[in-house]
């Protein structure tokens, strides 16, 4: 029982970051209809920015976190502006190929700049874990969880309550009519890609210091993000949030009760199971953002 509780707690701590990854991807696909293969690289970018800022430049850990997320947004906006803006109206295959190219280019740039050696990032949290009864959790993980929840909340507020968020939802539901209302679809796309990228970078910046940063770390993150989005239903933020926690739980239980080697296989097993039994995802309400 204690072991099960420990797995639940671990899953909860990890699920928040997975949810961030999923929300970013689901927003980008929902609003822009772009299958974003660079998502994992933005995750890696977030982790490497933490490494660069904290380990190389000596920036305060918390300041570095904010900067890493902001830089992620900036890189996302640049990718949209340079690549995707020209591809608006192009068919999905063309866009996918370009995004696969961008993914490879980004990953190799990381390898070139940071070499293939994994980098660890110091964190300012006490080494002794937080002990609650029979279970325990590292303070760094508690921090990751709290920040992830905070970012999910901010994103939800942004989409639901702000003018930009309403324009994003309107664009998702009916692009032509949104344009008739005076919404500049191009700016909405840039904002969406920047937001989605910032969330991926945030996930990387949060988990980078928990694990290590290495050039191919984005690949597994991207696969997991896709699993979460498929799980939650495309375009659904609550779906992506719950999907993140479900995947984290499946991984924890898979690693704990089957074999730790199965941890990363769980996301693929979930994708297969969902596609076979409920292809629209668990929470899809036809098509929606919100």
């Amino acid at each position: 029982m204690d072991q099960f509780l420990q797995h639940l707690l671990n899953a909860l701590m990890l699920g928040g970051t997975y949810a961030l990854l999923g929300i970013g991807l689901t927003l980008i696909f929902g609003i822009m209809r772009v299958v974003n293969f660079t998502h994992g690289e933005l995750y890696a970018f977030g982790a490497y920015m933490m490494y660069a800022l904290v380990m190389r430049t000596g920036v305060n850990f918390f300041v570095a976190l904010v900067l890493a997320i902001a830089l992620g947004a900036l890189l996302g906006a640049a990718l949209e502006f340079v690549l995707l803006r020209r591809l608006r109206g192009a068919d999905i295959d063309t866009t996918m190929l370009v995004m696969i190219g961008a993914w490879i280019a980004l990953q190799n740039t990381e390898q070139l700049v940071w070499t293939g050696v994994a980098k660890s990032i110091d964190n300012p949290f006490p080494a002794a874990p937080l002990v609650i009864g029979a279970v325990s959790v590292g303070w760094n993980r508690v921090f990751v969880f709290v920040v992830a929840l905070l970012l999910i909340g901010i994103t939800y507020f942004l989409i639901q309550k702000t003018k930009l968020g309403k324009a994003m939802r309107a664009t998702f539901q009916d692009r032509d009519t949104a344009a008739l209302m005076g919404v500049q679809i191009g700016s909405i796309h840039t904002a969406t890609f920047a937001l989605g990228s910032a969330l991926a970078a945030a996930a990387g910046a949060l988990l980078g210091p928990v694990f290590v940063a290495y050039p191919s770390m984005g690949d597994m993150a991207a696969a997991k993000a896709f699993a979460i989005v498929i799980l939650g239903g495309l375009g659904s933020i609550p779906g992506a949030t719950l999907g993140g926690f479900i995947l984290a739980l499946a991984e924890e239980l898979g690693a704990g009760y089957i074999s730790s080697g199965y941890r990363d296989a769980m996301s693929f097993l979930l994708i297969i199971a969902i596609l076979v039994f409920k292809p629209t995802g668990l929470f899809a309400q036809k098509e929606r953002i919100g």
Partner: protein
Amino acid sequence: MLSVSSLECRYGKVAAVRGLSLEVNKGELVSLIGANGAGKTTTLKAISGVLPPAGGRVIFEGEDITHASARRILQLGIAHCPEGRRVFPYMTVRENLEMGCFLRHDKPGIAADLKRLFERFPILDERRHQAAGTLSGGEQQMLAISRALMSRPKLVLFDEPSLGLAPNIVEKTFDIIKQIRSEGVTVVMVEQNALAALELSDRAYVMEQGSVTLSGSGRQLLDDPQVQKVYLGG
């Protein structure tokens, strides 16, 4: 107020509007009637900037808006109430209305307009927190019209306002459009229901295969034997 001359529109290689010209004066209610595929909707889309024209000129209050963006055209005072209502289905009634005044920044004015619209359409007030997709067709039409009015337009383009609505709702919709005109807003309407449109309009244009074949006052066209035969069933 609005002057369209030799308008040409294409979807790829297919010409939908060929050399259309029309004039709309301030305060008028002008209809475009014609069969399916005559290019009526395309004409409205070209005026509101959704579909950039391939040729010709569109002048609104002295400004050339032929190649202006939809946003700019809306800013100048042309609102477009699209065919099929096109409310944002997963946004609430209130959010839909907020999208209607997306470009406005005068908060007190917006609040006053919302209040007036809710008084005018109590059913929208009642359902203000409901998703627009759950409204009936008639309610959605009221919402779509209200949304267009939220931009405080000088000219409103209505595309098939009666399409798919129950007869009593159709009548109500036309009443609302008449009322909007009586408040000083100029109206251009595309309508398949030629009889109702002509009875309502100051002037009308009959379109065939992308250009105007007849024009005149609503009365004149109602009495025209050709129009009677082709569009009024008799």
